[in-house]
């Protein structure tokens, strides 16, 4: 009798385990967001390669022979045109009703931004030669943000916005300079006379001088302050493109880096980046008017390029969504407390302290069990938000984790890194940590490889549904950044400074080609760029990114060496 019971128990146990295995297997297979085969083929790879180079890699959504994402594909009669900022902003204003811009917790209507930008554009219109507007005021405050929009708007006429990382110390080619406060003004040491106009954006910070020079004006004296209604003229932006589309190739902005370089971007670079971002969302997860993007800035970081926020920002506004820009450096607030409760998309730098605090937050036993469950499901390719720890982040659906290339300075200055600059290991998050982040935030995480001051928007970004966890040795040596952006194509070339990298093993120096790359402004820098480009097959337009050593995975993803 006892023997029978044991046999019965064993049979029951075996059936139970077998059914658990079958059921979980079926559940995992059917609930998986993306099939492993799709994850293993994320790029279109050229069938041939040149000696000392790898094949050309493109995003899987751009088949060989098809053009890269070059713009918004707007119809003009029977033809398509790429579009420019004017098209984007007029569409944004046409649908702007309840959406808004939130700058450091202060909400502003798009009509207010539009009215002020139009007003300043009109004021600074020269009609003769280009007027250069230097913006050294923070973009996360109303004046800085409005000035950026003014610059973009005015670039269709004769204004050239120049984004500065600090107040110039030598005489620049600028007509107007926007600075943040009187405190900065006092530090200018008489250089205010270099400009036709100096705009002090926050007149409450610091004491004004006893005698204010005639070329100094405050934001309060210039700005329109009213509550515009949607039907009024000020809430519209009418734009009619010229028949020859010459606006599309006009310069939209110049970005000055802390490395002493200046890069110009065209309207085509901006629209290509906006279009590439919109296209990066999978079907059923696309942008909508319900989306709210929160952008967290690290203002004091050398890697903060203000222009980089605009492709995503404009894409969201174009869909009728709202945007918050926050600078929470040094704050002790949690991520949940900092963000607008309606946030659905979050752009955050990888090294953000708030994020690290959230990830190292102590968990209760129940939370740990939930985290183990969610992490396990994620590693199998099944998304689960069951372990979300912040109820404030309930609406969050995707986090864009921006990570910069290892040597921004080398890429910006077009010089191979020397000494310790090229040797210091890159601090990056492992794939296991990324999955912990997905589980704790209850949202997808897309890791982006950015190159501020050189490329507008990300160079590469991981798939929305890629939750793979790689072996520890891989994470130690490399960081996965997914396939290349749809507006770029890339290859790896033999790097003479890194003989240990083998092109035959798909390793080398990253070279990119496409529409979101900026052009050097200074003649000296331009000569250096042309020389470097000539060395890397100059006739075909490839730009080497010095100091960026990468590897192509067999899955078609770009991996940067740490």
């Amino acid at each position: 009798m006892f023997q029978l019971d044991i046999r019965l128990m064993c049979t029951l146990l075996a059936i139970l385990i077998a059914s658990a295995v079958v059921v979980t297997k079926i559940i995992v297979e059917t609930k998986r967001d993306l099939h492993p085969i799709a994850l293993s083929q994320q790029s279109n790879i050229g069938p041939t390669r040149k000696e000392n180079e790898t094949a050309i890699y493109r995003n899987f959504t751009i088949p060989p022979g098809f053009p890269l994402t070059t713009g918004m594909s707007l119809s003009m009669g029977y033809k398509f045109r790429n579009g420019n900022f004017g098209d984007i902003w007029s569409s944004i204003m046409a649908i702007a009703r309840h959406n808004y811009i939130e700058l450091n917790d202060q909400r502003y209507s798009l009509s207010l931004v539009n009215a002020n930008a139009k007003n300043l554009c009109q004021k600074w219109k020269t009609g003769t030669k280009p007027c250069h507007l230097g913006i050294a005021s923070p973009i996360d405050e109303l004046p800085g943000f409005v000035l950026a929009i003014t610059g973009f708007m005015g670039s269709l006429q004769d204004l050239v916005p120049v984004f500065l990382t600090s107040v110039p110390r030598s005489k620049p080619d600028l007509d107007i300079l926007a600075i943040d406060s009187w405190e900065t003004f006092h530090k200018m040491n008489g250089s205010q006379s270099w400009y036709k106009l100096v705009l002090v954006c926050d007149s409450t910070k610091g004491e004004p001088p006893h005698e204010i020079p005639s070329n100094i004006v405050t934001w309060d004296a210039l700005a329109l302050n009213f509550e515009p209604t949607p039907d009024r003229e000020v809430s519209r932006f009418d734009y009619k493109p010229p028949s020859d589309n010459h606006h599309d190739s006009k310069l939209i902005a110049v970005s000055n880096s802390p490395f002493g370089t200046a890069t110009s971007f065209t309207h085509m670079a901006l629209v290509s980046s906006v279009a590439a971002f919109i296209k990066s969302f999978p079907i059923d997860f696309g942008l909508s008017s319900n989306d709210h993007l929160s952008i967290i800035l690290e203002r004091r970081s050398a890697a903060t390029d203000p222009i980089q926020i605009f492709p995503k920002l404009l894409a969201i506004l174009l869909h009728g969504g709202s945007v918050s820009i926050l600078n929470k450096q040094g704050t002790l607030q949690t991520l949940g407390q900092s963000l607008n409760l309606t946030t659905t998309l979050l752009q955050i730098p990888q090294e953000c302290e708030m994020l690290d605090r959230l990830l190292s937050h102590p968990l209760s036993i129940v939370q740990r069990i939930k985290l183990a469950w969610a992490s396990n499901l994620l590693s199998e390719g099944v998304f689960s938000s069951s372990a979300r720890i912040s109820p404030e982040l309930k609406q969050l659906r995707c986090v864009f984790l921006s990570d910069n290339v290892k040597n921004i300075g080398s890429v910006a200055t077009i010089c191979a890194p020397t000494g310790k600059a090229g040797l210091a290991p890159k601090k990056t998050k492992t794939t296991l940590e990324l999955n912990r982040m997905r589980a704790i935030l209850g949202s997808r995480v897309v890791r982006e490889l950015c190159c501020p001051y050189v490329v507008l928007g990300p160079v590469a970004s991981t798939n929305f549904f890629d939750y793979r966890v790689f072996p520890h040795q891989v994470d130690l040596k490399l960081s996965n950044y997914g396939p290349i952006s749809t507006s770029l194509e890339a290859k790896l070339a033999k790097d003479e400074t890194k003989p240990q990298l083998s092109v035959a093993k798909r390793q080398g120096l990253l070279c990119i080609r496409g529409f979101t790359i900026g052009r050097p402004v200074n003649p000296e820098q331009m000569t250096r760029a042309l020389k470097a480009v000539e060395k890397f097959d100059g006739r075909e337009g490839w730009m080497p990114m010095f100091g960026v050593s990468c590897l192509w995975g067999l899955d078609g993803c770009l991996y940067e060496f740490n």
Partner: protein
Amino acid sequence: MSFVKNLLFGGVKTSEDPTGVTDNGNGAQKSQESEPIVEGRFFPRTLYKFNGHDDEKIFLAIKGKVFDCTQGRQFYGPSGPYSNFAGHDASRGLATNSFDLDVLKHWDQPMDDLSGLGKQELDALDSWLEHFQKKYPCIGTLVPEPGVNI
């Protein structure tokens, strides 16, 4: 099974290494299968295998330039109207508008010097070359192999 094991004992599923840095062997095998061809010099013998049959890729040569026509598989691939051109120097066939295999030189024959072609045929060949240069990537040059073609 790993899912249940991880569920009971903790842990996560680790994906295969797609980078090859851990040298688990699978990657290297897959890598060799899909290795891109190095652009450079082709001999008629080395070009022949890229006929869409022996190798999935389809290369053909016109006036000494080798083009990768894999994208045009419906034309140049097996059972396509121009399948005879795949893996060959297609110059004479295109110039004379002939799809006949006998018009083309085989890999073990001396290379075609295009002698005997009239001006009209050479003009037609030039326009074909222009068409291929616009449509397909040029991946190398076709040269005679010492001891085989010369």
